[in-house]
């Protein structure tokens, strides 16, 4: 019985149609939950507004790039938004598991890959939406994009890749635990990646040795620096390669592990 679950009959709908069906539901549900949509988008903007002004004194530290602190810190809302997406995507999936909806889906010929990709459809839409909002807010507050219009599009692409990678992490936790509470509890740990990175100051200006070391080994630093380079430096191949490299690695690893967890859960069902 278990082996039959998640397999598609030869004359059934194709993989893309299955992804589309689950994805439509995921997107509709996400757009209907305005609290889940607005709060995670608003919170990083509030922090951006506060920190962008409150830490302006940091620009007087010798060695700080010759840009406003607001321009320097614009990369952070993109990362914070990505972390919120991880939680939203995970909670949505966990709710389906807790409510039994996932079990009912597992009894249909729907393929596991379609179920996972479709469930993350809502997260993908939110990622696109919030990336555009953050970019527009940055521009509206006087931040220029050093890499120009093309750079703005690359920035959006990079931030969406990162957000999708974190959405995969949320899905993985949901599939492993089957609990929305567990997904929420993991949020502080995800936030560590942002706290212990070069989010607030360039790595060479972090005075505390252990912190600088952690930030150097923290992939989140390179994701932030990839986005930041497009805003304050221009076209920096190394920063972009590292940013996209770590972003795509996160997507591959998180979705790969989530697929495995999905298979286990379907068998368990």
């Amino acid at each position: 019985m278990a082996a039959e679950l998640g397999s598609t009959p030869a004359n059934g709908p194709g993989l893309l149609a299955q992804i589309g069906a689950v994805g439509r539901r995921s997107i509709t549900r996400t757009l209907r939950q305005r609290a889940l949509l607005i709060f995670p988008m608003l919170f990083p903007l509030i922090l951006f507004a506060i920190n962008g002004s409150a830490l302006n004194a940091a620009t007087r530290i010798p060695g700080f790039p010759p840009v406003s602190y607001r321009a320097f810190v614009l990369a952070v809302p993109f990362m914070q938004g990505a972390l919120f997406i991880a939680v939203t995507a995970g909670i949505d999936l966990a709710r389906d598991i807790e409510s039994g909806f996932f079990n009912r889906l597992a009894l249909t010929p729907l393929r596991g890959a379609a179920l996972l990709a479709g469930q993350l459809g809502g997260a993908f839409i939110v990622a696109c939406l919030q990336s555009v909002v953050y970019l527009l807010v940055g521009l509206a507050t006087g931040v220029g994009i050093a890499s120009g219009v093309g750079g703005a599009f690359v920035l959006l692409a990079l931030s969406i890749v990162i957000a999708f990678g974190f959405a995969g992490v949320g899905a993985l936790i949901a599939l492993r635990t089957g609990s929305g509470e567990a997904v929420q509890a993991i949020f502080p740990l995800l936030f560590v990646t942002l706290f212990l990175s070069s989010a607030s100051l360039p790595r060479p200006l972090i005075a505390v040795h252990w912190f600088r070391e952690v930030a150097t080994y923290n992939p989140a630093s390179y994701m932030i620096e990839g986005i930041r380079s497009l805003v304050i430096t221009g076209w920096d191949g190394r920063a972009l390669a590292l940013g996209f490299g770590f972003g795509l690695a996160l997507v591959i690893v998180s979705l790969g592990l989530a697929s495995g967890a999905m298979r286990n859960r379907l068998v368990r069902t």
Partner: protein
Amino acid sequence: MKRFAYVARAVAWRSIHNTLVTPSVIVPSIVFPLFFLAAFAGGLSKISHVPHFDYRPGYTAFQFVFVFLQSAAFGGVFTGFAIARDFDSGFARRLLLSAPRRSGIIAGYAGGALARWFVTGSIVTIAALIAGMDVPGNASELVGLVGLGIMANVVAGLWGCGVAMFLRTEQAGALIQMPVFVVIFLAPIYVPLPLLTGWIHSIAKVNPATVVLEAGRGLLAASPVHVGLAFAVLAGAAVVMAAWARRGLASAERAG
């Protein structure tokens, strides 16, 4: 009075017990302030090199006071979450039916918030001392700092209690958290007030949280400023929030 104390003690005990035995509840309330301390005191310490930054005990102590008071306020906020959860699960309604003196429920939750913060505040303090924080303040000044934390905890706890009892759903979480977060973060948390510029300086100058934060930093540095005013601000806020929480309770009673 006896019935009030009976209800308060029972609710506080349950709140403390639930906090201590539920990792998903206790861990975030401990981990978040520690992250703040590490990220701000560790990652931003170079800011103390900015000209005219003149806080004698150093940047770790400067940030410790913020994190200490923030953890106090968030101890209250997290208790608001717990109350909302109790309403969602139906427990709070049974509590309202069974409590012989319902105002004791508010006091009990506030007591639970305070106990929760004693755990968090102690851990944050130990972490800051391990990180090499300098503490020039004497014992009475440090007691004053703890007093500010207690009052901040009570104010935020009563706020959270009121919101949770008015809305009676876990979805109230954002509404409980957001105003506290904004008020705290619109105070001079990274640099002293004179180093802030623009709109944030204008807001921080009139933000009551600024007075509390500056008083706390002054007490730790053995050069007290605005201490009386800070306690007066918090005492006033506690009175207002107690009335707010009482109205929230009345709303929950009416809803049945």
